[in-house]
């Protein structure tokens, strides 16, 4: 069905990103309202889109009225509409939360910051909806360039981390470009659906193997799959809190989506599983990454850095699900994209609240007073941590469950062991925080803390030092983990079952 709706969200973000610097000439305060309204509209449009796709099947839009394969096509199929909704919902909560910490962390830079944020989201949505391989590259670079800016705006070390990310990210994007160059030479088309139809005629061509490997390596860098993760820890640690909370759930997931799209929807399961052992390679690297990320996370003293390493491990789960290349593993991977976006979003927002309220996010300095001062943040942290470990009925359990079932289905017991061991390691590094906060006896009251809580309350604060805008998004994100967990059977049956690629 041809419809305008696939193009609406990227255009909305692009238009608002451009309008922010213009509108903010006189008043810099308009940047935030424009951002949050655009983000809210994107959530509304993507919810409507997923509903339409559900009812009518895939929606397509042809740019300039040129029909594919000549023109550029935007496609909303069940997979892209689902990922778009996840990205936009998480981004909305993170941006809502950003109003409270923005001025404290990067004073006076709200106009460029929000403009870049919207460009970043424009790129993410563009990557998700586009049906054209080269157009995907362009959006990938919009997305990445905005991301470098968002990271580089942070602490003193941030430009160095961002520079390193830029070098590696550019190599990744260039490999992707080289890969689609090979694909274009062989097939003569850049439209994904068209390439899919042409490919069976040229299956024997060795250039296809080169194209596939280059694309997977390139996107593997963006996704931070194990040996290509070098840019991630520094970038997440030194970036402003909002950026970490935005890039961690969205940035790597979008790259994972591109790998799923290219492997299973462009090359096709049959070709991928017969030509090269690339899915096995992804699965094994992901398995190493899961263990490596978890072990490194245990060694970290700073919360954001710990979460960054834990991201590498969680990306490993998604990579493992992709690499298993069977329906159960695939369900696990897609479900984990959803779960990890919510979990990491809320964990990074809690780290942001700690930095805002306590001035640090150093794990060794946490003690029992934090559960009094920041009760809601800590409750949210606990819930998200339990979900990361994978305790039922939180969401994290179910994606690991499907991954484990996929590993059993494949008959690979090493992967099953990896999933179980990593859950144990997750428990170690999260419980050491929970222990400090909840199980340690309350510290002896010092003179400064003797004051009754009423005198500490400021305007707009609910309990302790937390503002509504800092608290509510975190709480909603983490409590929705319970909801996702309880509704996971419906999500899998109604949504993810429909997006299992043909022939899997």
């Amino acid at each position, binding site marked *: 069905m041809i419809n305008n709706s696939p193009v609406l969200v990227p255009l909305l973000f692009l238009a608002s990103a451009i309008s922010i610097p213009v509108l903010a000439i006189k008043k810099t305060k308009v940047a935030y309202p424009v951002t949050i309204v655009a983000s809210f509209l994107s959530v509304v449009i993507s919810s409507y889109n997923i509903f339409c796709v559900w009812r009518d099947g895939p929606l397509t839009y042809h740019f300039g009225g040129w029909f594919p394969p000549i023109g550029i096509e935007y496609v909303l199929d069940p997979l892209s509409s689902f990922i778009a909704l996840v990205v936009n919902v998480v981004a909305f909560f993170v941006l809502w939360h950003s109003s409270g910490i923005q001025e404290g962390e990067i004073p006076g830079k709200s106009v460029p910051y929000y403009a870049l944020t919207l460009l970043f989201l424009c790129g993410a949505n563009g990557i998700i909806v586009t049906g054209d391989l080269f157009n995907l590259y362009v959006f990938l*670079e919009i997305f990445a360039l905005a991301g470098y*800016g968002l990271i580089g705006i942070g602490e003193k*070390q941030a430009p160095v981390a961002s*520079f390193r990310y*830029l070098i590696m990210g*550019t*190599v990744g994007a260039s490999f992707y470009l080289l890969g689609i160059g090979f694909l274009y030479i062989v097939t003569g088309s850049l439209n994904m659906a068209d390439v899919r139809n042409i490919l069976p005629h040229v299956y024997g061509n060795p250039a296809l193997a080169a194209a596939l490997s280059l694309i997977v390596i390139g996107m593997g860098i963006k996704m931070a799959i194990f040996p290509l993760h070098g840019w991630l820890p520094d970038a997440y640690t030194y970036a402003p809190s909002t950026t970490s909370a935005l890039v961690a759930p969205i940035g790597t997931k979008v790259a994972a989506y591109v790998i799923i799209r290219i492997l299973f929807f462009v090359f096709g399961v049959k070709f991928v599983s017969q030509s090269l052992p690339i899915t096995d390679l992804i699965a094994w690297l992901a398995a190493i990454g899961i263990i490596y990320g978890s072990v490194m996370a245990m060694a970290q003293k700073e919360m954001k850095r710990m979460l960054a390493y834990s991201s590498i491990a969680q990306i490993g789960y998604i990579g493992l699900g992709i690499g298993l290349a069977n329906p159960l593993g695939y369900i696990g991977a897609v479900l984990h994209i959803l779960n990890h976006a919510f979990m990491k979003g809320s964990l990074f927002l809690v780290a942001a609240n700690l930095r805002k309220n306590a001035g640090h996010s150093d794990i060794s300095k946490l003690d029992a007073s934090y559960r009094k001062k920041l009760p809601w943040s800590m409750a949210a942290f606990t819930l998200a941590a339990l979900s990361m470990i994978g305790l039922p009925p939180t969401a994290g359990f179910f994606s690991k469950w499907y991954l484990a079932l996929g590993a059993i289905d494949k008959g690979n017991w090493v992967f099953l062991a990896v999933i179980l061991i990593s859950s144990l390691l997750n428990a170690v590094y999260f419980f050491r925080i929970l222990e400090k906060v909840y199980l340690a006896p309350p510290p002896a009251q010092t003179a400064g803390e003797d004051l009754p809580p009423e005198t500490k309350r400021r305007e707009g604060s609910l309990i302790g030092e937390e503002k509504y805008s800092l608290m509510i998004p975190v709480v909603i994100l983490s409590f929705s983990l319970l909801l996702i967990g309880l509704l996971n059977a419906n999500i899998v049956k109604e949504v993810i079952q429909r997006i299992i690629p043909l022939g899997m």
Partner: protein
Amino acid sequence: MTDFILGHYVYWSIIALLIIGLYGMIFKNNLAKKLIGMTIFQVSIIMFYVASAVKWSATVPVLDPVTGVADAAKYISPLQHCLMLTAIVVGVATSGVAFSLAILIYRHYKTLDESVLLERMKSP
């Protein structure tokens, strides 16, 4: 064998450029030199696309009344060139962001040398 090498000399030179670019990015200590490597790397990919559009005994993809439109094989493929115009723009934007980050780094640490930089990052 010589045919294999000579017949694909364009691609061999592109591969050489690609490796020079990668070498610069990985082994050079100076951030500006890394960026030079990155640019060489991107240019090699642009040349790969342009080389793939080349065709013997064909003309530029501009409508020529003498050649006409009946035989499309008489024009070289314009698509790769259009794609690479976009890729050049993307490359320029990347360089712009990269150089502004390098300037920020220099302002904070007064150096662009990576080994010195890492030492100065450790001692705040």
